[in-house]
């Protein structure tokens, strides 16, 4: 009998903390999202069904943020995967200074995302920042380009910074994948006359797949949850806002708790789809 309750006793603190600070709020947010609830009108809080959701999908501002979110998501996933894989191949080469290279490679991951945004703000600064100095020095442009001043270049810069911070994790996941493949496989393939292309396609890729799945899903989650970098690069302006920023502004600047909650739930819907893939990819490895 004692044995049966022990595991629950051990889990109790975690269940308590997660229950009160994570699961209860998630459910509460949903109930808020079905209410008319503005802090500016505290006397007038009542159930309105899915009206908040309908208002949101009819607003241009939502679709603007949605496009931004998707832009960041697609860009970040593609380039993080590509460069993460390349950096992993690079770090896989054994040289005297491998240790130093590894340390440097995890720096972008270890630093506060807000500070990362600040670092890159100096590089892409719209006046005479690093990149503009470089472009002018090379004669590519005669006057500074406003990278942070127009929508698409700003989104590009935000995405680049997020890619930069996400590469280390992706690279290490790929590195773990590569190192899990027995060297014999490559030797056998070479003996049988396999070309590098064939080896990549029939050995490296299939065996790396579960690792890439973890890397890509976790990068996608990072990409839709970007916040700090956007604040660092463009403040709380509307130009580069994603849905998360829109939900933050709706809730805490315009004090519309109902609508802000509904907006969050829309982001969460996408996050949960990714979450299911994430769980699957994490659990798949348990079997092998």
């Amino acid at each position, binding site marked *: 009998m004692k044995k049966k309750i022990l595991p629950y006793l051990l889990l109790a603190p975690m269940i308590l903390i997660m229950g009160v600070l994570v699961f209860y*709020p998630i459910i509460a947010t949903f109930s808020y999202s079905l209410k008319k609830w503005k802090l500016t009108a505290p006397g007038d809080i009542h159930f309105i069904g899915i009206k908040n959701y309908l208002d949101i999908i009819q607003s241009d501002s939502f679709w603007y943020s949605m496009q931004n979110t998707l832009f960041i998501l697609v860009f970040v996933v593609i380039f993080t995967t590509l460069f993460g894989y390349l950096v992993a191949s690079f770090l896989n080469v054994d040289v005297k200074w491998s240790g130093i290279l*590894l340390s440097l490679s995890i720096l972008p991951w270890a630093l506060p995302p*807000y500070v990362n945004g600040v670092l890159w703000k*100096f590089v892409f600064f719209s006046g*005479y920042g690093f990149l503009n100095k*470089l472009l002018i020095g090379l004669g590519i442009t005669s006057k500074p380009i406003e990278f942070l001043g127009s929508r698409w270049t700003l989104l590009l810069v935000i995405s680049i910074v997020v890619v930069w911070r996400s590469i280390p994790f992706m690279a290490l*996941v790929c590195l*773990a994948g590569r190192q899990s493949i027995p060297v014999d496989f490559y030797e056998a393939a070479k003996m049988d006359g396999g070309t590098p292309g064939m080896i990549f396609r029939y050995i490296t890729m299939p065996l790396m797949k579960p690792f890439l799945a973890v890397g890509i899903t976790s990068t996608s989650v990072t990409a839709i949850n970007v916040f700090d970098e956007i604040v660092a690069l463009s403040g709380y302006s509307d130009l580069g806002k994603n849905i998360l920023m829109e939900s933050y502004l709706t809730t805490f600047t315009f004090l519309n708790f109902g609508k802000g909650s509904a907006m969050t739930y829309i982001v*969460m819907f996408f996050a949960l789809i990714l979450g299911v893939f994430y*769980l699957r990819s994490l659990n798949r490895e348990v079997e092998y």
Partner: protein
Amino acid sequence: MKYAKKAGYYLATILFLIFTVGPFVWTFIISVTPDYAIFAPTSKMLPESITFANYVELFSGSRRGNAFFKGMYNSMRAVGITLVIGIPIAMMSAYALSRMEFKGRKVIKNLFLITMVIPVMATIIPLYRMFAAGKMLDNIFWLSLVYVSSYLPMASWLISNYFATIPKELEEAAMIDGCGRGAAFFRIILPLSRPIILSVTLIMFLNTWSQFQIPLILASSMETKPMAIVVSEFMTKDSIQYGLIAAAGMTALIPPALTAMLFRKYLISGMMGGSVKG
């Protein structure tokens, strides 16, 4: 062919260094450039003279310098509380999840894990209300507890994967020799798990040092707000001193950068552990 390969590797190293270290070097240059020269209309990369005035302002007890160090101190306090609460709880849960069979094990594990993908905004609105009602806003303890709730799933997942690699026989042998379950844990499992505990400790430290969005909403007083928020306020206040922001950024980077350099091995095994079983 061999030369081509070597040249390619060196080229890759140079590109890697430019893109990894470049932003730090550039920000450092900005931090020692006199204010008037920072964005002077010239394509020259290096300033004609250098100054440490920004660092002096930061370290010599000016109003902004004090705010910055107060923020660093607040961040550190949150790190302390997060670790003291987070690590033991993560270990208890990890032990139950990896070493015991009980009803609902899989469901509980998956429910915890899936919260890792949920955006901060999905929990923060009710938390804000709860904290406001309970007078828990602007309180480092409660703030840290919210951090803990966001780290526990990853932490207990990493630790339980590690526990699973320790042979059950070791524990059983100790129990046959008369140890209770508790004693077997402290004498056998705990000493063997030192590496993963260090990994998780470091990851929690770095995550707490990075916090921005949660304290933005739950901690707005001088007494509680962390470093990143203080730096962000340098950016939005009436006069923007870029040199000072650069100097503050460089200073705030020192703890995590040192950690990454000194404890590379543990951080990397922790990060890889998040993707690889055991």
